[in-house]
């Protein structure tokens, strides 16, 4: 069985601005995942909605929630409802598209986010779904030429570098948590490893890991 809800605070929580945990808090979480991967302010944001997200995003505040996450806000930040205006004030172009077909990642609450920066040409695509109560899965990431297809449940750790470079990550992780799955991806730029972790890491634990691997992404 897939264990998506690993903490009692996934059930009692999050503290959030209403009205919908899957369409607002969850959308914010997908945006935050995109923010963690992109690691800079984009010039252009394109959001593709599917199924329930496509039908009800306006009513649920999904638009501002997703943008607030991309800007790095927490779901209970009082700026959440104003995120679209705040982003446009920074000169960010935002497009929302209601896709008529079924979700390509097979979930009714799907958002696919494309972030780009016209100044440096950086582009990433993140496919996420909101599975209820503010909890999300990330089922697709395109970055740096890698086409990453995680199983979905978080936490996920992405570490660029060769098999040899991964030794210290593996060593450090073994002291912290069980690795449910380790997958290798290849691109013209080298290798990248995806670790599906059994428990959520504390911020200080992620910082410690990042000391040796400055380009890692923790979702």
């Amino acid at each position, binding site marked *: 069985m897939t264990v998506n809800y690993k*903490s009692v605070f996934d059930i*009692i929580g999050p503290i959030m601005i*209403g009205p919908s945990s899957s369409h607002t808090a969850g959308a914010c979480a997908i945006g935050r995942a995109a923010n963690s991967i992109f690691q800079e302010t984009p010039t252009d944001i394109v959001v593709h909605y599917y199924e329930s997200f496509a039908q*009800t995003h306006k009513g649920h505040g999904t638009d501002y929630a997703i943008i607030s996450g991309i800007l790095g806000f927490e779901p209970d930040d009082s700026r959440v409802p104003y995120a679209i205006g705040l982003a446009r004030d920074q000169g960010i172009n935002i497009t929302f598209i209601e896709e008529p077909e079924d979700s390509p990642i097979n979930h009714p609450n799907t958002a696919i986010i494309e972030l780009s920066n016209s100044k440096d040409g950086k582009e990433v695509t993140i496919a996420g779904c909101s599975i209820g109560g503010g909890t999300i899965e990330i089922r697709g990431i395109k970055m740096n030429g890698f086409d990453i297809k995680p199983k979905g449940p978080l936490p996920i750790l992405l570490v660029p570098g060769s098999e040899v470079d991964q030794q210290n990550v593996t060593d450090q992780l073994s002291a912290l948590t069980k690795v449910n799955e380790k997958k290798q991806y290849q691109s013209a730029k080298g290798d990248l490893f995806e670790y599906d972790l059994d428990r959520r890491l504390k911020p200080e634990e992620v910082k410690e890991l990042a000391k040796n691997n400055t380009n890692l992404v923790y979702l």
Partner: protein
Amino acid sequence: MYMSVAELVDAAKKTKKPIYELVIEQEMDTSHNTREEIWDAMGRNLDIMAASVKKGAEGEGVFSKTGLTGGEAVKIKNYRSDKKTLSGDLMMQAVQNAVATNEVNSSMGVICATPTAGSSGTLPGMLFTLKDRLDLTRDQMIQFLFTAGGFGMVLANNAGIAGATGGCQAEVGSASAMGAAAAVEIAGGTPEQSAEALAMAISNLLGLVCDPVAGLVELPCVKRNAIGVGNALIAADMALAGCTNKIPADEVVAAMDKVGKGLPSTLRETGLGGLAATPTGVRMKEKIFGKSVEAKA
């Protein structure tokens, strides 16, 4: 991690520990946080719940941007003080607390999702009513939330808690079941009785559809939390009286998962079926999202 109701009940019996204690221990194990950190985090959730129960019933009450919902927690409060209620003051206090919380949610106020925002009124509705009824201390209220959360994890990992995948039974149904099970424990019932309360609460709401008018978490979501809390009180009382569900809790949870998967997508948070598809529901949607509104956005 406790993956079934039976595992949780068995562990409580074997260790002679309350369920909330097992849930706290599980959280310490998975998060590597201290007991104090975990306890304080739940205390913050409790404070947010207390604030929303209060805010929704103060003054004129709170109103959503669309005007579809709001002000009814205050109506219930006034009715309680002016008239003799039919179902008793305790029941209507629970309904008031639940409606107040969900009106705050619909007005884009701050709430604690339990387990979701759409069902965020059910558990506080229960808890703040039991607080007065049973003279609960702050510590007991926090214990209630851990027990409710522990059962909620089992529901979420086995059947899901999203209206878009399982209908409202997965949201208000889960919240009601969590509240019923936790209420039994705090009232001095056995772990088995908590499981029976959970099973009865879900059984009574099995098949409840998710049909938000205009796709908004307003109609019928706010009042669905009233039935969530009423059902939780009834299921908890029946379990404490010694009634049993006959179908075991874990089988009920599995049935909820199957029923949810069998619901057509029109009844899973698309705003295309049920009350959302009534002539009035459609008119409301057109009024809110008509051309004039889109032009402004």
